[in-house]
């Protein structure tokens, strides 16, 4: 039986490799996804990272030379030119009675005018606010010192934050996208192949020929699933290698974290993704056989793939409930993310979801095999 499977598997692989262009087309995703993501991120980074120099508009600046100088020391400067590219739509208005209030020890009003719903502006607004808060507390401290009072009295609590994050674990959202793109490879790298080897084979009328041999339909299905899974894994290996090369090139450190694809992670990923590859292949074969024609199969497979994508997505955006975290794909992706972050891996979830993944693989294979016994399916009637 092993021999039959081997021969069948070889047949499927040879069949698939024949059309090199379509094989490559599937693998393009594996090569392109990390590169595309890095390009996107680099652009995003430029938007996110507050450039060193920030220019704003300050009205009545003469009233508060101390504040203006303090802001300037933090690289927040008054724009001389309205068309300065660094000029952001942030306006500070120093009140007319600023000096009066300041010298009398009353709070002196400074009004910050900006649109907080503008996401690109948020970071800059925070920066200006923070710089002004520092100035305010500095002046307040000196006021106390000049009255002979230790300004530390203002700090009733010394709040110490112990952040357990490591530079690798800080980029949670980005890490989610990285693992998402990796898991997606398992589905996309061999999608065309899966449709071709099932619905395509039927359309070329070679399926009936194959079935006319003294073979069990389960063997045929398993061989097909195996071949597809092999190409999925190839896609996985490629995306891992490309990721390892490409991700370090993005200047993540500007955001205060790093993404390191270690060899250990690659191995871990290959190990836990193998069952997913089997499951995804069997699912795609099953759906393709269900469809009546090649085109129909294409539509259905794309639609069905939405389910694993959704599972992966909820993990990526961290909206997975406690229950969803136990489901296949979601749990595996969560484990991958925890691995990169250097956190303990959720073993029970991983074992259960892997078990479910294998059961699904068996179920889809069995169902496909049963379908192949029906003439309606074999001839697409």
């Amino acid at each position, binding site marked *: 039986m092993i021999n039959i499977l081997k021969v069948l598997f070889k047949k499927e692989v040879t069949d698939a490799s024949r059309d090199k262009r379509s094989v490559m087309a599937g693998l393009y995703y594996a090569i392109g996804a990390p590169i595309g993501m890095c390009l996107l991120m680099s652009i995003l980074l430029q938007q996110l990272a507050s450039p060193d120099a920030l220019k704003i508009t300050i009205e009545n600046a*003469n009233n508060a030379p101390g504040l203006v100088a303090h802001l300037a*020391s933090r690289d927040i400067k008054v724009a001389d030119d309205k068309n300065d590219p660094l000029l952001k739509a942030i306006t500070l208005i120093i009140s007319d009675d600023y000096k009066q209030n300041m*010298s009398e*020890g009353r709070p002196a009003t400074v009004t910050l005018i900006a649109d907080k719903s503008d996401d690109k502006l948020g970071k800059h607004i925070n920066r200006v606010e923070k710089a002004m808060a520092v100035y305010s507390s500095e002046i307040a401290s000196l006021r106390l010192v000049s*009255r*002979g009072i*230790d300004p530390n009295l203002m700090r009733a609590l010394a709040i110490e934050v112990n952040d357990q994050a*490591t530079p690798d674990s800080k980029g949670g959202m980005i890490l989610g996208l990285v693992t998402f793109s990796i898991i997606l490879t398992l589905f996309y790298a061999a999608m065309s192949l899966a449709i071709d080897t099932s619905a395509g084979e039927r359309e070329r009328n070679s399926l009936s020929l194959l079935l006319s041999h003294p073979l069990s339909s389960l063997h045929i299905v398993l061989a097909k699933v195996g071949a597809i899974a092999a190409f999925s894994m190839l896609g996985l290996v490629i995306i891992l290698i490309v990721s390892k090369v490409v991700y370090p090139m993005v200047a993540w*450190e500007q955001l205060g974290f790093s993404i*390191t694809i270690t060899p250990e992670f690659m191995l871990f990923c290959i190990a836990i993704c193998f069952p997913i590859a089997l499951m995804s292949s069997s699912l795609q074969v099953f759906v393709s056989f269900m469809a009546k024609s090649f085109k129909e199969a294409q539509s259905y497979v794309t639609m069905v793939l939405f389910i694993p994508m959704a599972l992966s997505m909820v993990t990526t955006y961290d909206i997975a409930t406690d229950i969803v975290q136990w489901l296949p794909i979601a749990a595996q992706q969560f484990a991958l993310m925890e691995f990169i972050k250097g956190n303990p891996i959720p073993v029970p979830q991983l074992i259960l979801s892997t078990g479910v993944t294998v059961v699904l693989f068996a179920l889809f294979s069995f169902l496909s095999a049963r379908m192949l016994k029906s003439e309606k399916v074999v001839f697409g009637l």
Partner: protein
Amino acid sequence: MKSTFKYRNRLIKLAILPFLIANSAMIQGQENNNNPVKLTPCYMEGLSDRLMCGSIAQPLSDNPADGEIDIHFAVIPAIKPSNPDEAVLGFAGGPGQGAVDLARVFNRNLRFARETRDIVLVDQRGTGYSNQLQCDSDDLKTQFAFNDAITDLQTMSKQDTEQCKAKLNVDLSHFTTSAAAKDFEAVRVALGYEGFHLYGVSYGTRIAQEYTRQFPASVITSTLDGVVPMQQSFAAIGEAIDDSLLALFERCKNDVACNEQFPSLETRFNEFLAKLEQQPIEAQVRHPRTYELIPFTVTKMKFYSAIRLALYSHTTRSILPLVITKAAQGDFSPLAGLMANADLTQSLAMGMHNAIVCSEDWPQLTPQLRSKYSNTYMGKTMIEGLDIVCPILEVKPTDKTFYKPLQSDKPTLLLSGARDPATPPSWAELAMVNMTDATHLVAPTATHGIGSQTCAPKIIAQFIDQKAMQDINTDCISEENDKQFFMNINGVANTYSTPTANKE
């Protein structure tokens, strides 16, 4: 058959791939196992990031009978460790400050350098967690009441020093700069870095230079911020203090508002000093924290020391005209506030501090230098202090070669603040005489340690990255960074408002 072979070949290739990865992973793992130091996560005050702390045992001296000392250190991990073989080594000042406790400051000054390299902070022997040599110090209340002019200061400091010596009960000669340099090298070896980029502040520049002298192969670049030249004694500091104070008076004089509010500040200051010298003033102030009325004996030494410490930071510099004027008028609350704010003695390991100055700075004082440094009030006071403390502590004088200016071809960046009350730019010029690849940057308005003030952090990071100062734009160093003077007790005075208001 051919196709089978091909296909097998392909499979083998596929199979080999993860295996090679596994292999390289194993090698990596082994390297880590060779690492003898155990690093545990730790946190330092004011810094929420997770550091890795550890310690190594180092022989206290060449004589094994003296036992060992645990040298503690912390690693601030790089954000993106693209240079895992290199790290930035931060040296704290003082002497007597612990580097690990200052993680927040080093992390801020080296924030750009940290993007790609770890920062290593080692508590120099005798400081911080490495067997801190601390003497008892008086509480604020006692300090305020203490009259250093009438009390027999000599007898008192002698007693204090003897008490401290008995408490420490260790040969302080093992805590000198040259002895400590070896600890830093041992930490480098233990952590497995190929080389260090040095970053020393104040006294930290002296140990950085000594480290470079002893272990040139371990040094990639060296950044010295507030440079102490090897050939210079700390006692030369008096001149720097006076210059820094003069710069402050000058600035107030040239500032219309300040000059109007605090006219002839310098004269007032000198007159008040003279008055204090003749007769300390007995006053009462509120305790800066408990608010109870406590006696406050204002002496020349207390007043001058408080002003001197305030010269280090632009924030406290800005209220000095107010403090001086108020004190001269008999209101000592601002002075009390300033003294409470600068309670430095707690953070300095005085035992280690004395070990260094008595071994390295005191023996160097020739009669000529003594008379030269005694021209300034602070220089004179310091020498008098050393003359009491050092004979009791009996620290072995350091080797004469220690005082030779460092000969180095390492890329070196020297940073000075022109208003530095401790290590003025001229000291850096002295330090770099035998350095072949040195660049000296002076921030015209900055004070001590320009890494915390100007745009220096960026320049330091670029310098560390490129290992050279060529092509680095240093214009921003010359930007003014001083703060507006405090004109009245609340900050800005309204007397000198806008010119239009004056016209009305």
